[in-house]
């Protein structure tokens, strides 16, 4: 395989890992503010460490440098040398942001060359001791006794120990950076044991022009010499093997005189007990490319089809020769295969599922920033983050949710003082709840803010010329509320940077509909608002209602089907030359499917005494789709239409039925829109 191909492969892996670790980093950092426990710090530290390691391995030195600084900061927090303050928190979060930006830049093929000096300086400057640090003071002066002791303590393996001393050029402007690069080299090929001055001092540029590093490595010394040579602004450097003199072990006090000048080659075995490095916890997961899962899904789909055919063939054979003993065995085997295939499909679906936490986890951060910016106090409560849904839905649900959340905070919640005056707690609460209901996921976003004033929505709609004052008054409160999803309508009195421009809720609704979902709003003035989203668990497999019309089988997504009816021919009435029926007191317009999905061959409708009507709904609209007959209910795997088919109005995709034939999936929303458009023209 070509080397550059390999590299890009690793970049992908690196990015995936970085994604994961950055995610952990951010989550845990946010949690840290509330609960600065040691465990949490350890988790964060591990994430930072992993990031450092992998970015360094990939040669993203800038990324590695930032993570290294982060790691140092965290190390201090972990060791209790410093405590978490808001300033530190901010810096840590900014670091996490910067890393994300760098990661994006790498993902876009632009490398990690962004200048992060400011952040690095900030991080370094925050690493100030709250109390005088004992270890550094004890190492002041010559400090070689302690050095040996420290080295002995830190030596972890049998690898030889080296000593490197550097002298920077006189007018070196980035002492820290140079020293840091040297440390980076060391850590790349080995383990840094001790640095003089200590790393904290190096980071604060608390040293003259010289610094020394003691490290362990299995690599030959030439490798270091070569790498150190690449560091600019270094006047001279010297690397040599370092040896503990045996008496040093026996008697630490006397052995240190010529320690720094020892020139003898390292002995194979350092006189220390080797403590094997703690291995990272083994991971019980594997990363799989989604396209591979899709392929697998296709294969299972084929299996399902063949299974159906197999049982058909078995039935045919059985009808022919009842005597054959193999027939029974065949039926049994087919039954077994059927069960296995069903399980397989089920398991595969589960593999594609992700907890909605993946999306939700982005929000605490956003809420924190937003609340700070606009001076509100917000408590974000997240429930049901473990609720699982298909990747395809996860990917497209983030933005609409984010938008609703922003709205809730920006417009929904009142300012703290105002809340106090109303007798509410200063801190507003926004709740984000996800749960499964039937084969759907329901997400509720509610706030305990001022609620939406229905009258203001009405007034606004009239003002924008969307409705006449009379028709606005005729709307029920619920209908009026849902006007906020119409485009160009925002009830926010002020346009802010974040929301209130009147674009937004309509896009939110459009996005939700694209996912075959439904969004509704409920609000009580003074108490708060609740947005409810109902979404299918997956976009790859849907439950469909199979209907027959003009000799073809169509699939209607069950998510938009409300009920099916058998309507007597005489119950059908004409309104504006359009057919309609009265269903439980409400007028239900009828729409023959043939009228929208016009069959190519001329098809003559037989005289029938009744019609089959499928009542479908998108948001508040209800319409009865008339079909020739109902076939049944089935899970279908959605296949998108080939590019060569062009855009077919009223069809959202295709699927393969049990008999191996292809059936089209009806785009209910598209059908309704198309019929509305055509009606407008004819009227």
């Amino acid at each position, binding site marked *: 395989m070509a080397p550059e191909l390999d590299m890009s492969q690793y970049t992908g892996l690196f990015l995936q890992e970085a994604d994961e670790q950055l995610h952990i980093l951010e989550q845990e950092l946010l949690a840290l503010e509330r609960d600065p426990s040691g465990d949490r710090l350890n988790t964060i530290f591990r994430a930072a460490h992993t990031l450092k390691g992998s970015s360094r391995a990939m040669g993203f030195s800038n990324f590695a440098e930032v993570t290294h600084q982060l790691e140092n900061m965290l190390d201090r927090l972990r060791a209790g040398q410093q405590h978490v303050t808001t300033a530190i928190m901010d810096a840590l979060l900014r670091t996490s942001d910067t890393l994300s930006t760098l990661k994006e830049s790498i993902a876009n093929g632009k490398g990690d060359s962004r200048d992060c000096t400011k952040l690095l300086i900030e991080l370094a400057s925050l690493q100030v001791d709250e109390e005088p640090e004992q270890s550094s003071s004890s190492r002041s002066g010559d400090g070689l006794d302690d050095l040996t002791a420290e080295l002995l303590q830190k030596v972890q393996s049998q690898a030889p120990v080296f000593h490197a001393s550097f002298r920077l050029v006189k007018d070196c402007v980035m002492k820290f950076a140079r020293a840091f690069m040297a440390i980076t080299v060391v850590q790349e090929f080995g383990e840094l044991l001790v640095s003089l001055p200590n790393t904290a001092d190096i980071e604060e540029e608390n040293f003259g022009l010289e610094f020394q590093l003691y490290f362990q490595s299995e690599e030959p010394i030439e490798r270091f010499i070569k790498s150190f040579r690449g560091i600019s602004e270094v006047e001279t450097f010297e690397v040599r093997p370092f040896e503990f003199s045996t008496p040093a072990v026996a008697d630490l006090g006397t052995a240190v005189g010529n320690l720094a000048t020892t020139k003898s080659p390292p002995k194979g075995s350092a006189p220390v007990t080797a403590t094997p490095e703690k291995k990272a916890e083994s991971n019980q997961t594997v990363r799989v490319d989604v396209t591979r899962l899709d392929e697998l899904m296709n294969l299972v789909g084929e299996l399902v089809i063949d299974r159906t055919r197999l049982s058909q063939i078995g039935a045919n054979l059985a009808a022919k020769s009842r005597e054959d003993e193999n027939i029974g065995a065949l039926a049994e085997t087919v039954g077994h295969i059927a069960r296995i295939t069903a399980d397989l499909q089920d398991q595969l679906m589960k593999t594609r599922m992700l907890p909605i936490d993946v999306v939700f986890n982005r929000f605490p951060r956003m809420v924190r920033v937003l609340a700070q910016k606009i001076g509100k106090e917000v408590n974000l409560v997240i429930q049901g983050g473990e609720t699982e849904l298909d990747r395809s839905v996860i990917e497209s649900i983030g933005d609409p949710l984010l938008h609703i959340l922003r709205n809730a905070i920006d417009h929904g919640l009142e300012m703290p003082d105002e809340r106090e005056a109303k007798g509410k707690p200063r801190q507003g609460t926004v709740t984000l709840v996800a749960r499964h209901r039937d084969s759907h996921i329901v997400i509720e976003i509610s706030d305990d803010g001022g609620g939406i004033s229905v009258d203001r929505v009405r007034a606004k709609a009239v003002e924008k010329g969307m409705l006449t004052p009379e028709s606005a008054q005729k709307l029920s409160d619920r209908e009026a509320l849902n006007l906020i999803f119409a485009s160009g309508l925002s009830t926010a009195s002020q346009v802010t940077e974040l929301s209130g421009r009147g674009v937004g809720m309509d896009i939110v609704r459009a996005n939700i509909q694209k996912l075959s979902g439904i969004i509704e709003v409920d609000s009580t003035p003074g108490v708060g608002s609740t947005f409810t989203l109902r979404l299918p668990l997956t976009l790859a497999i849907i439950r469909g209602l199979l209907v027959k019309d003009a000799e073809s089988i169509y699939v209607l997504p069950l998510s938009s089907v409300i009920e099916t009816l058998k309507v007597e021919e005489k119950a059908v009435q004409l309104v504006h030359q359009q057919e309609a029926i009265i269903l439980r007191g409400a007028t239900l317009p009828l729409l023959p499917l043939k009228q929208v999905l016009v069959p190519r061959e001329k098809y003559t409708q037989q005289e029938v005494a009744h019609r089959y009507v499928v009542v479908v709904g998108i948001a508040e609209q209800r319409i009865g789709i008339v079909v020739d007959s109902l076939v049944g209910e089935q899970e279908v795997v959605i296949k998108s239409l080939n590019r060569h088919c062009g855009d077919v109005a009223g*069809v959202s995709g295709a699927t393969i039925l049990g008999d191996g034939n292809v059936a089209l999936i009806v785009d209910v929303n598209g059908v309704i829109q198309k019929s509305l458009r055509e009606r407008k023209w004819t009227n």
Partner: protein
Amino acid sequence: MSGLLAKEEKHADDRERVEEQQLVVFRMEGESFGVEIFKVNEIIRLQQITPIPNSPRHLLGLVNLRGKTIPVFDLRCRLGMPLAVPTNKSRIMVVEAEGERIGVVVDEVTEVLSIQSDEREPTPELLSGHTDDCVTEIVKHDSRLITLLDLDKVLVA
């Protein structure tokens, strides 16, 4: 015919290298058509095609190709021929067009033919018709005439 021969000689003059090429040959309306073999993925029996409403006439519909749905086009429609009645010799030729697999229905696939690249020649002007945008060359092989189809152009319609 003499004009044709003259053209061939002229064509033979500016030829540089002769290569062997393979064509999938199929028949429609008594005419032999050829498609370069590397464009053809596979040839399957005619199976039930699900029509797509509101789609262009030359798009016959979708078929199930081992768990994938692929669109099937009517080549006759594109070539200005009358619609055929499917027979048990009818086949769907699965080809790769612009990175995606599609099917075209043909009356009968007869053979895979090895030709020399110098047997290819531009369509004689007198023979070119309204399909000349997708039929730019013909092949003369052992005194047989085969119309060479440029599938990419056929499907752009």
